[in-house]
C-alpha cells in the first residue's frame, strides 16, 4: 500500500534537537495477562523479543515490545507486517483469553535525535516525568502526558528518543516538540 | 445603631473618627435562643437577618467557629447573576439578585453592588443552542437576559479576542443587571444589621455536638458552653458534612477545593464580567483594578483551602487565549476555598431527619451570588416550615432521581 500516509508525511525540524515524523510504523496492541507464560512465548515467537518488564521496552531487529500496563503490551514492527503479526498472535494464543489488534494507523511516531541532554529537556518541558539519566534511559518506556495529550516515549539509545501519540493530535505534538526544541530555549539542566 | 452616611463621615472626620461605634457586638452566649444558626458566613447571617426582618424572630444566635465572613464569603470572585436554566435555580438566584439591588440601602452598608453585566460566551454551536434555550427559559422566568452577537460582545468587551484560532466567539448570553458586589461587605453589613436587631453573633465558638431528644433538636454544645434552642440552622459551607454528622445524618456532598486568583491592579479595561465555559475561565475587573479570575475545582476531597496548580494553569491559558493582553499582566495572589459539591451540583435547603434542624449547603461554586436569596428562603423555611424558593431543594430529591442539573445548558460551570 504505497499510498499509505503518516499523519505528517515526513515533516521535520532542526532546533535544539532534530524532530521528525518517524513515518508509519506497525503497531499491535496486545491485551492479556503479561505474566502468563503463554503470552511470553507468543510474544517471543511473533516478535523475537522478550516480554518487557514493568515500564520497559525490548527490541530485536526491527521489532520491539513495550510494556503499557500489566495486561497490555505494544508490539512494534514494520508497517506492512501488523496484520500478519495480529494473525500470528491469534494462532499462538489460540484458546488463551487475549485481544490483539492492529493500531498502526491510530498513532503517530516522532523521532528526536541530537544532544542527549537537550533531548531530555525537550521532553521535560512537556511531560511531568523525571527525565534525568538516573531515572530514565535506553530500555525504559514511559506512558505519560505531553502538555495536554497522552503520549509515550522511549530512548532507542543515548541521544535519541521516540515519542508516540494518537494520530489525530500528530500536528499538535509536532508543534509542541518543535516549540520545546526552538533555538535559544535550552535549559541546561541535564548537562552533566 | 448610628446610621452611616456621608454626613456621618464628615461629622466624625472633625473629631478624627474617634466616635465610631462597633459595627456589631461581641456578646457572651446566652443559655437559650429561639433559633441558633451555625455559621456566620454570608448565608448564615442572611438567614438570621431575614428571620428578623421578615418574621420578627430576633431571639437568634449566629455561632461561628472562626471569624464572621471568614469562609467562602471572603474567598469568592464576587459574581452575581441569575441567568440559570432550571426554574428552581432561576427563581432563587433572581430573588437573590434583586435583593442585591437594594442591599446597600436595606442594610445601611455599602456592599458596592455593581450591576455591570455578566456575559457568558458561546464558543460552539452546542453552546449557542444551550444559551438560546437559557434565554428562552429566562424570559418565562422573569429573568432579563438576551443573546447577543459577536460585534456587541466586542463592543462591551474591547479586550476580547473574537477569533481565537480554536473557539471563535459566536455570541453570548448577556444579563445586564448582573454584576459584582464587595463580598466582605455583604457579611459585615448583615452582621451589623443582625446585631442591631438584638441578635447575638458569637465568633470563635465551635459547635461540638447537636443535642437531640426524641428525634428533635434541643440545643447545641459549643466550645463556650451549652446553648438551648428550638430550631437549628446549619449553614456551614465547606464543613457541612462534618456538622451534619454531629447532628446525626449524612449529606450527599463532597468537599473539594475551588480556586481563584487576581492580577495586579491596572486601569479600567473591562467593565463587565465575562465567563467562557468552553475554555474554563472567567474574569472581571474589581474596583481596585485587579482582574479577578475564577479557577476550577479539584477532582478530589480536600479540606486544605489549597488547590492544585494545574487548575490555575488551565484557567490562565484560557484567559490568555480569550483576552490576549492579559499575557503581560501578572498573577498577584491565588487562594482556595472549600466548597460543597452535591450529586447534581445544586444546593440543598431542606428539613432534615432531625426535627427542628434545617440544612443549607451544597452551593458548590455558586454560593456568593445566592447569599441574600438563600437567606431569604432559609428564613422562610425555618419560620414557616416551607418556602416556595426552597421547595425543589430537598434532601430526598436524590432518592427520587429529581435532579436540578444546571450543567445541561452547554457545559455551564456555575
Amino acid at each position, binding site marked *: 500500500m504505497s499510498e499509505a500516509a503518516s499523519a505528517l508525511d515526513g515533516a521535520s525540524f532542526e532546533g535544539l534537537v532534530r524532530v521528525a515524523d518517524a513515518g508509519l510504523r506497525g503497531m499491535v496492541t496486545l491485551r492479556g495477562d503479561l505474566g502468563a507464560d503463554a503470552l511470553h512465548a507468543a510474544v517471543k515467537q511473533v516478535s523475537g523479543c522478550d516480554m518487557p518488564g*514493568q*515500564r520497559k521496552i525490548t527490541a530485536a531487529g526491527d521489532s520491539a515490545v513495550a510494556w*503499557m*500496563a*500489566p495486561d*497490555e503490551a505494544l508490539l512494534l514492527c514494520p508497517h506492512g507486517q501488523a496484520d500478519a503479526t495480529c494473525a500470528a498472535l491469534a494462532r499462538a494464543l489460540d484458546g488463551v483469553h487475549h485481544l490483539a489488534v492492529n493500531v498502526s494507523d491510530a498513532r503517530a511516531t516522532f523521532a528526536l535525535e541530537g544532544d542527549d541532554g537537550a533531548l531530555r529537556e525537550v521532553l521535560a518541558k512537556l511531560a*511531568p*516525568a523525571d527525565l534525568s539519566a538516573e531515572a530514565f534511559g535506553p530500555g525504559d518506556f*514511559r*506512558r*505519560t*502526558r505531553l502538555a495536554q495529550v*497522552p503520549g509515550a516515549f522511549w530512548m532507542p539509545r543515548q541521544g535519541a528518543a521516540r515519542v508516540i501519540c494518537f494520530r489525530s493530535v500528530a500536528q499538535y505534538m509536532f508543534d509542541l516538540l518543535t516549540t520545546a526544541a526552538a533555538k535559544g530555549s535550552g535549559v541546561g539542566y541535564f548537562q552533566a | 445603631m448610628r446610621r452611616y452616611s456621608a454626613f456621618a463621615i464628615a461629622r466624625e472626620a472633625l473629631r478624627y473618627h474617634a466616635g465610631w461605634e462597633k459595627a456589631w457586638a461581641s456578646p457572651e452566649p446566652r443559655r437559650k435562643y429561639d433559633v441558633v444558626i451555625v455559621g456566620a458566613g454570608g448565608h448564615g447571617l442572611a438567614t438570621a437577618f431575614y428571620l428578623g426582618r421578615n418574621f420578627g424572630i430576633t431571639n437568634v444566635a449566629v455561632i461561628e467557629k472562626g471569624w464572621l465572613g471568614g469562609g467562602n464569603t471572603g474567598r469568592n470572585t464576587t459574581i452575581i447573576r441569575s441567568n440559570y436554566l432550571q426554574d428552581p435555580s432561576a427563581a432563587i438566584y433572581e430573588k437573590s439578585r434583586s435583593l442585591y439591588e437594594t442591599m446597600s440601602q436595606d442594610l445601611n452598608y455599602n456592599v458596592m453592588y455593581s450591576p455591570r453585566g455578566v456575559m457568558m460566551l458561546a464558543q460552539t454551536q452546542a453552546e449557542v443552542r444551550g444559551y438560546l434555550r437559557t434565554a428562552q427559559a429566562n424570559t418565562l422566568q422573569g429573568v432579563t437576559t438576551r443573546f447577543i452577537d459577536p460585534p456587541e460582545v466586542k463592543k462591551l468587551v474591547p479586550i476580547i479576542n473574537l477569533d481565537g484560532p480554536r473557539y471563535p466567539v459566536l455570541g453570548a448570553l448577556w444579563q445586564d443587571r448582573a454584576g459584582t458586589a464587595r463580598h466582605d461587605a455583604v457579611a459585615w453589613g448583615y452582621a451589623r444589621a443582625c446585631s442591631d436587631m438584638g441578635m447575638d453573633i458569637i465568633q470563635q465558638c465551635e459547635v461540638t455536638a447537636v443535642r437531640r431528644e426524641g428525634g428533635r433538636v434541643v440545643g447545641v454544645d459549643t466550645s463556650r458552653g451549652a446553648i438551648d434552642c428550638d430550631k437549628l440552622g446549619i449553614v456551614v459551607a465547606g*464543613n457541612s*458534612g*462534618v456538622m451534619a454528622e454531629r447532628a446525626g445524618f*449524612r*449529606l*450527599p*456532598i*463532597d*468537599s473539594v477545593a475551588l480556586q481563584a486568583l487576581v492580577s495586579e491592579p491596572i486601569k479600567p479595561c473591562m467593565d463587565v464580567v465575562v465567563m467562557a465555559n468552553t475554555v474554563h475561565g472567567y474574569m472581571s475587573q474589581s474596583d481596585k483594578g485587579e482582574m479577578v479570575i475564577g479557577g476550577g475545582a*479539584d*477532582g*478530589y*476531597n*480536600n*479540606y*486544605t483551602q489549597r488547590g*492544585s*496548580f*494545574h487548575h490555575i494553569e488551565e484557567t490562565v491559558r484560557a484567559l490568555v487565549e480569550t483576552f490576549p493582553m492579559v499575557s503581560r499582566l501578572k498573577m498577584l495572589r491565588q487562594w482556595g476555598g472549600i466548597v460543597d459539591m452535591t*450529586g447534581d451540583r445544586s444546593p440543598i435547603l431542606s428539613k432534615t431527619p432531625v426535627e427542628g434542624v434545617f440544612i443549607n449547603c451544597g452551593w458548590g461554586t455558586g454560593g456568593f451570588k445566592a447569599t441574600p436569596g438563600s437567606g431569604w428562603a432559609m428564613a422562610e423555611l425555618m419560620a414557616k416550615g416551607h418556602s416556595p424558593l426552597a421547595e425543589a431543594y430537598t434532601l430526598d430529591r*436524590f*432518592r427520587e432521581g429529581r435532579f436540578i442539573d444546571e450543567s445541561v445548558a452547554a457545559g455551564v460551570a456555575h
Partner: protein
Amino acid sequence: MLILHCPYCGVMADETELHGGGEAHLTRHGPGSSDEEFHDYLFAKENPRGVHFERWRHVNGCGKWFHAARDTATLEVFGTYSAQTTEPPQAIRDAITARRPGWTWRHLAGSAK
C-alpha cells in the same frame, strides 16, 4: 499538586497524569435494591475530614484504576493499592493506624481490630 504511587506501573505519578474517581469500596446496587440502598450507593459518600479511601485512574499512564488511602486534611497518603479489593488491605490499615491511631472509616476502626 498530589503525587501518588501507581501500584500498577510503579511510578510516582503527578496529579496531572491522574483522574480522581471519588470514594472507593462502594457496593453496587442494581435492580431489586431498595431506594435507600440505591441512594446510598450513588450519593451517600463518606466525606471525612481525615482518612479517606478513594479511587484514582492513572489515565495518562497505564490506564488502570487504583485505590488510595489519604488524609483529606493534610493530604498525607498512607498507601495506594489494587482496585480489585472490596475493602482496604490489612497492610494499608496498619499503615494508617501507625499514623492516625484511633482512626475510623465506615465500619473500619484502626484501634478496634
